[in-house]
């Protein structure tokens, strides 16, 4: 049997990429949607020691009771090591117990600031936006106070903009030196952006988004064309390893057989 899958969707690819990015034995505070699927896959593959935290209260559950449909549902609590509520979960992030926050968003800028509140003009158009999104939830809290942030989102030009409508979850703010420290943040900011096309990071000096790896079927050019701002392109961009047959099987048969989060086109 071949090692790599030749039949996978972009949604499955992004879950695999997200999963592989999560280090084992770390405390990972996971947002709803793709982060939940990716963290489940990681727990079943290279990361049995991952400690998931869900904002509704569950700490360190085993995600083997079925894919949670909400970060607050019963399945997030199966064999959890600790379980209180939202305040206790977010207090953990402020204290420094959460190594990574794992979040999504609808729109992102070069400094990793995310929008999940509204599209349109701000602040004038706030009470009557062009499109209203669900709102921050806990994403902005994770972005500020988890030690590092991993962002996962669909890669489309309209979602990657030099200037976004509204900063919900702060990244490196305006990119100026020590911007996060000066703003009062406890955590260090975004480390990776996992998309349907690429693995991205941030330039150490300018804090602008840089390309790290291309996902199967993509090129540096196709990724830059799908990005509404100029990416930093270093010399060592590499091709990301395709999903394995086993990873795709786990997503389809074990993790999300109904296709709640995977295969469904993400629409905001």
């Amino acid at each position, binding site marked *: 049997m071949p090692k790599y899958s030749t039949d996978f969707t972009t949604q499955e690819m992004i879950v695999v990429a997200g999963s592989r990015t999560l280090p084992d034995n770390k405390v990972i505070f996971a947002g709803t949607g793709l982060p939940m699927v990716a963290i489940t896959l990681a727990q079943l593959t290279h990361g049995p020691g991952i400690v998931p935290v869900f904002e509704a209260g569950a700490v360190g559950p085993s995600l083997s009771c079925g894919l949670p449909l909400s970060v607050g549902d019963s399945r997030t*609590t199966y064999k959890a090591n600790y379980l209180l509520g*939202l305040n206790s979960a977010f207090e953990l992030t402020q204290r420094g117990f959460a190594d990574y926050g794992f979040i999504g968003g609808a729109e992102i800028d070069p400094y990793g600031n995310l929008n999940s*509140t509204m599209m349109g003009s701000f602040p004038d158009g706030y009470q009557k936006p062009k499109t209203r999104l669900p709102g921050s939830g*806990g994403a902005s809290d994770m972005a500020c106070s988890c030690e590092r942030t991993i962002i996962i989102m669909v890669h489309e030009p309209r979602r990657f903009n030099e200037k976004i409508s509204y900063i919900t979850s702060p990244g490196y703010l305006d990119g100026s030196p020590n911007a996060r420290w000066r703003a009062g943040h406890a955590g260090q900011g975004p480390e990776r952006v996992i998309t349907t096309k690429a693995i991205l990071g941030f330039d150490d000096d300018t804090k602008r988004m840089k390309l790290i790896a291309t996902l199967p079927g993509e090129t540096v050019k196709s990724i830059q064309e799908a990005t509404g701002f100029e990416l930093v392109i270093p010399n060592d961009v590499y091709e990301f390893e395709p999903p394995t047959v086993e990873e795709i099987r786990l997503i389809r048969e074990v993790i999300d057989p109904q296709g709640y989060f995977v295969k469904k086109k993400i629409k905001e």
Partner: protein
Amino acid sequence: MIEWTGLSPDEARQFLANKDKSKRDKRMSLKDAVQKYVKDGDNIGIAGFVNGRQPIAIVHEIIRQGRKDLCLSYQSAGLAIEYLAGAMILDESKNSIKRMELAYWAHEAFGISPLLRYFSENGIVELEDWSNYNMSARFKAGSMGLPFIPCRSPLGSDMLQRNRATVMDCPFTGRPIMLLPASHPNVALVHVQEADIYGNCRIQGPLYTCPEIAMASAHIIVTCDRLIEHEDMVRYPNRVSIPFFSVDAVIEVPFGAYPGNSHGLYYFDEKHIPEFRGACEKARKGDLTALKEYYDNYIFGVENTAEFINKLPLSQIQHVQKAESGIRLDAAYTVLG
């Protein structure tokens, strides 16, 4: 000074100082509880989290009676708000929401909230955006009897331009910190798995922000899936999530959080939620037929939650119970006769 929605911290303190805190039988009908404790113009604290333990039975009763100019306060909510919003779209003269203080309104895996889009994109409801931790910490400040609480997030977010938080330099470290005003709703709507007749509540699974919302509010209506013997409640005193003297009314409503999840008892109804959400999506696009049919059938056409559940096939109810298998209720109880 800010403009307080609900009670100001000093009003909340005074209110509680004068409250009857006796340990008395607080059972009453849901109709009477809503009649007595939910008023037009109230700031209502909605407990639960997204579609977990949302106070659906209480909200359906509010809709049947009709309440206007409400301010809704919550961290993340789904169905409870969607039901109130749907009632407003169908007949604004009977039910209306004026303002929401929120972090998130959608349904996670089941999709975005159609009526949040409708309300905000048409400028119908005033919104104040916060994060989940912000709203939780605001209730916590209220429950602590403090006028504000410091918080590290989301500093640098545009939310700060649109809410009443303030940023100051910490007097001890010199670094910026956010200060959030306490939230004291006029009434909290809470659904739990187990309560006794005095109002002691034992929450199974995640607590969400239910204890804080309850302790911060002036009045509290509790619905429970099971009313249990007081002796069984006090056998585990450190498992009492909400103490009796904060509660005004206790109503046993099995499936009171349906079609949402009540940990250990029933999972989301993966058929019914999309059915309701689909009707809301049609309403957003201008066609109210399906939504009106839904309300006439499941809310206005019934007297209470038992009649609502009776309209559904038994197999569907059994399915949501079965889907909760493997999730244990972690304290034994005797069901009250």
